[in-house]
């Protein structure tokens, strides 16, 4: 079985390498891509979509279908990480440790007794607990709002400059990951729990596909945003720009949630306890 797999891989690889001989040479000006497609994008994209950044126009409008499945791949990566790593931890008869956040005193609740619910000034800690650093905590608290603001700027400004949903989503996810690293995973999960995360991850893809389906429902091709003009109350060209923006928001949400989910699963080995 293994030998057959190896044979198939080698055959496919050989075939692919053989096919590279038919590629046009590097940067060949008469290649099909540079004769019809690129000039049209470069010359017409601003007239047709009112988006100054050609890359964004190609990514989210002309090749929107491609990008939709890219987003789906990211979603699938998050789900795969969850399925592979997440394990169910039995809250069994082991002891639970709580620490008073002001004095640093630790209490231990043994034999599976329920912890009192009014332990507000206590935080749950693990046996292999790692001390937190005041400097790193404080600086991260100061920086995280700016990181998130910048992420929103990157998402919204993808029309005019480098940026867009993927980059902005990664920055937005990084801000929550920084919180999880500087404090611990529990305090980041208090702000964005596992359920919210999963919902957001799916909602991002849904926004993207839903925009496409909306175009379909209004009587145009899938992801042809021009038909959405009555909804945005503007002309069809501007509607394409706005449609790209909607799609970018979906991409941003999906990428953010997936980044956070992958970090949560990998850093705590699927147990969702204290993390790194």
């Amino acid at each position, binding site marked *: 079985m293994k030998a057959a797999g190896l044979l198939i891989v080698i055959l496919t690889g050989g075939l692919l390498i053989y096919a590279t001989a038919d590629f046009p040479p590097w940067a060949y000006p008469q290649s099909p891509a540079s004769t019809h497609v690129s000039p049209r994008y470069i010359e017409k994209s601003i007239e047709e979509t009112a988006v100054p950044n050609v890359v964004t126009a190609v990514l989210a409008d002309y090749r929107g279908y491609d990008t939709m499945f890219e987003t789906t791949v990211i979603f699938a990566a998050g789900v795969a990480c969850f399925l592979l790593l997440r394990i169910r931890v039995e809250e069994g008869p082991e002891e639970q440790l709580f620490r008073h956040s002001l004095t640093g005193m630790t209490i231990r609740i043994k034999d599976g007794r329920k912890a009192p619910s009014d332990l507000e000034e206590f935080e749950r800690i693990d046996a292999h607990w*790692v001390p937190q*650093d005041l*400097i*790193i905590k404080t*600086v*991260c608290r*100061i*920086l995280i709002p*700016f990181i998130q603001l910048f992420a929103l700027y990157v998402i919204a400004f993808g029309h005019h400059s480098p940026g867009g949903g993927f980059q902005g989503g990664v920055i937005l996810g990084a801000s929550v990951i920084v919180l999880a690293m500087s404090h611990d995973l529990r305090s980041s999960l208090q702000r964005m729990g596992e359920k919210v995360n999963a919902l957001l991850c799916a909602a991002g893809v849904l926004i993207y596909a839903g925009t496409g389906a909306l175009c379909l429902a209004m009587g145009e091709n899938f992801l042809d945003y021009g038909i959405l003009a009555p909804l945005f109350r503007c002309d069809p060209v501007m509607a394409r720009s706005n449609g790209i923006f909607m799609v970018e928001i979906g991409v941003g949400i999906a990428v953010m949630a997936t980044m956070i989910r992958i970090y949560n699963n990998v850093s705590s080995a699927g147990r969702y306890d204290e993390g790194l």
Partner: protein
Amino acid sequence: MDFVVIFFLVCGLVFFTGGAVGILRFPDFYSRLHPAGKLDTMGSLLMMGALSLYNLHHFTLGNMLTSLKIILIVAFVFLSSPTAIHGIVDAGMRAGLGPWTKGDRRR
């Protein structure tokens, strides 16, 4: 104005050179992180400040905005770079790497 800009640029260059030499020449992990955290931050602070000043040659609102953005970069580097170095040093201590003492081999 130009003289001030040149002065700051040269000062920043001195700090960067010191940082680079320090990273190469110091004997161990902790002492190498020391110039990486301090001198690079100071160098980038001075050079970015000089650039934002130079950008204000023709005083318009657009230039002002660009300078403000450079100042913002300076502020965030000033906050985040030493903190990152602090975190790395902390991780090194927790991993059990002892500091270098006189007479030891370079590590």
